[in-house]
């Protein structure tokens, strides 16, 4: 009886959620939005410094969101490496010596690096951008790591921490420098918009890849130096 109840109740709750959501979606779809944001956006596109509206929203109109989003990524990275123990990075069990993987790597890694670069460059006027490029770059790192290339910079040390924070730090510096120049926080000085956005995107790509890779590397755990049960 209890088992049945334990399945039925969540089932009923989720079905109610879907029905209510569906009803409200139907109701919303019947009306026009009173504010037309796409039109406003199209009117301001020439001031944004880039040609693709999504990139313009991400790195200019709502850049504060993006700044905080990168902060969230850095937090995840920090917590990840705070859990990691150095030895696990060198765990021989994690290395494969598969000749097929080696052969594939030789082909894939240059291609993936190229793709990451393309995605970054494409962000200005078509779908693409820092996060996509960073994700591909991180994928590249994951492949290399699985293939047994040690990637020494991923050891929890100064280099890793600089890499984690670099993109965020550059973004933040740009934000505050414009505030010092008398504009609002995060406002780009006129004429500098495009180069600044490109700089930010490039360092962000690098840092995003670092964070994702660091999280991948710190997930496996082993017995070496497990933290003790210390209490406050």
């Amino acid at each position, binding site marked *: 009886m209890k088992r049945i109840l334990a399945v039925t109740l969540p089932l009923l709750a989720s079905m109610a959620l879907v029905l*209510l*959501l569906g*009803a*409200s*979606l139907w*109701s*919303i*779809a*019947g*009306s026009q*939005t*009173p*504010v*037309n*944001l796409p039109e*406003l*956006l199209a009117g*301001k596109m020439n001031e944004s410094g880039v040609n693709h509206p999504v990139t313009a929203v991400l790195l*200019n*109109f*709502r*850049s*504060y*969101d993006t700044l*905080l989003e990168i*902060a*969230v990524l*850095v*937090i*995840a990275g*920090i*917590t990840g*490496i*705070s*859990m990691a123990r150095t030895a696990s990075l060198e765990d021989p069990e994690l290395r494969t010596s598969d000749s097929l993987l080696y052969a594939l790597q030789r082909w894939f890694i240059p291609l993936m690096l190229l793709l990451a670069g393309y995605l970054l460059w494409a962000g200005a006027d078509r779908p693409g951008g820092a996060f996509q490029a960073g994700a591909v770059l991180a994928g590249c790192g994951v492949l290399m790591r699985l293939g047994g290339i040690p990637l020494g910079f991923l050891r929890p040390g*100064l280099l890793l*921490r*600089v890499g*984690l*924070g670099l993109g*965020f*730090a550059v973004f*933040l510096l740009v*934000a*505050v420098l414009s*505030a*010092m120049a*008398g*504009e*609002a*926080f*995060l*406002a*780009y000085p006129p004429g500098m918009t495009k180069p600044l956005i490109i700089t930010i995107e490039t360092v962000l790509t690098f840092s995003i890849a670092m964070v994702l890779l660091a999280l991948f590397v710190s997930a496996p755990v082993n017995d070496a130096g497990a*933290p*003790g*049960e*210390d*209490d*406050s």
Partner: protein
Amino acid sequence: MITAWLMAGLLFTPLAWAVLCLLLDFSRGRLVSCLGITVQVLVSLGLWVAVAREGGFLYGLGGWEAPLGIELRVDGLAVTFILLTAIVAGACGLHASVYLAPDNAWYRYFWPLFWFLWAGLNGVWLGGDLFNLYVGLELLSLSAVGLVALGGGINALRASLRYLLAALLGSMAYLLGVALMYGQFGTLSIAGIASLLPETQALVGPGMAMALMLSGLALKTALFPLHGWLPPAHGIAKSPVSALLSALVVKASFYIAARLWLEFGHELGSTAVAQLIGGLGGAAVIWGSWLACRQSQLKQVVAYSSVAQIGYLFLLFPLTFAVSDTASLQAQQGMTLQVVSHALAKAAMFLAAGNLILATGSHQVAGLAGVSHFLPFSLFSFGLAGVSLMGMPPSGGFAAKWMLLQASLASGQWWWIVVLVAGSLLSAAYVFRIYQASFVAKTGVDDFYHPPGSLEVIPLLLALMSLGLALVAEPLLSVMALSLETGGAP
């Protein structure tokens, strides 16, 4: 002009210090962080004075205005909470710098997470954009989870996982509500939606959005019966972290819920919903206090007391819905005073509890035997904070509960008075229980560790502030009431 500098400083400092501390180890991070705390307290104080003098303003980030860009809403309430954050977080930071042992390698990650947490708090107090608030909430939750998990064992990991899952589900429910709101109105600005609401006919969509956002935020605020994640997380974390979480982090999601209710509740709320939320708050007061009386571990007592004190905050919902303007104003003032006084008192209490645990080497309430004889000072701040939680005059807790009581009377909702009185009695019970345990006589030998004086002074100062809050309530409330429209000194 000066406000522009202050705003930039306020937004920049915590984030910059987070990156800076990431590069340093714990001891150097401690030095740098003390400097950062000073800067941040000064900037917050400056902004508070500026707003108290000249009234609030809107701050468009990146120079873009509301529907397209993100606007921060710098009003009296927001700057008061920013100042409160500066005081409490600063105190917790200073306490942590002595409390945490620098030889543990993973404590180097404490400072970056601490600063990100502070940045998230400021972002939430100022946020005027629904989606930006979501990102701010996530920033807050993830850094809080990171702090709970820091270097911990199985129990800390279990508590932080539970906390993380609850926080993630809460944010997702909130985001789903935001999606519906955007679909309906085409804008994310809270003020924009509030101005469009009266002309909207079909309220099904926004109503559902409101329900989703409120339930998500209630989960994140640990409103009864969604409070299961809070006591393990707040109980297991290091004491300065527990103080930060209990005093400030849970208030952030409540603050958003209250803002949404005050802006949209008029159109989207109903008496039934308001009474339901108030009823859950009342149940939290009783149930949380009752469980606090029954805990065997000292920090669990304090953590369950947080569940109870959060319950009082939710009385705001019934006391501001469909009542006279005076009653509504009193309820809002009671709520803000409760946030401020509970933040100060609970931070003091957790820090004092940390000192007591350090001194006795035991987490149990029973382990306190003999403390009153050898360590009266440590116990004193705990007791002072307890006075404020009980709501005895002249503490801030008393002023807050008095306001809520008056609002209940003015709106004819006498049943909340029962909750207020019962809650105070029960909280007196659990505070006295700690005292009773500490007055039990022990062998005549002082084998306690005596914590350094700086650890003792910080909770004492916080407790004194909470105690004296009622004396400065008048000027504080007049600044909190400064909205954007009414500029100028009162």
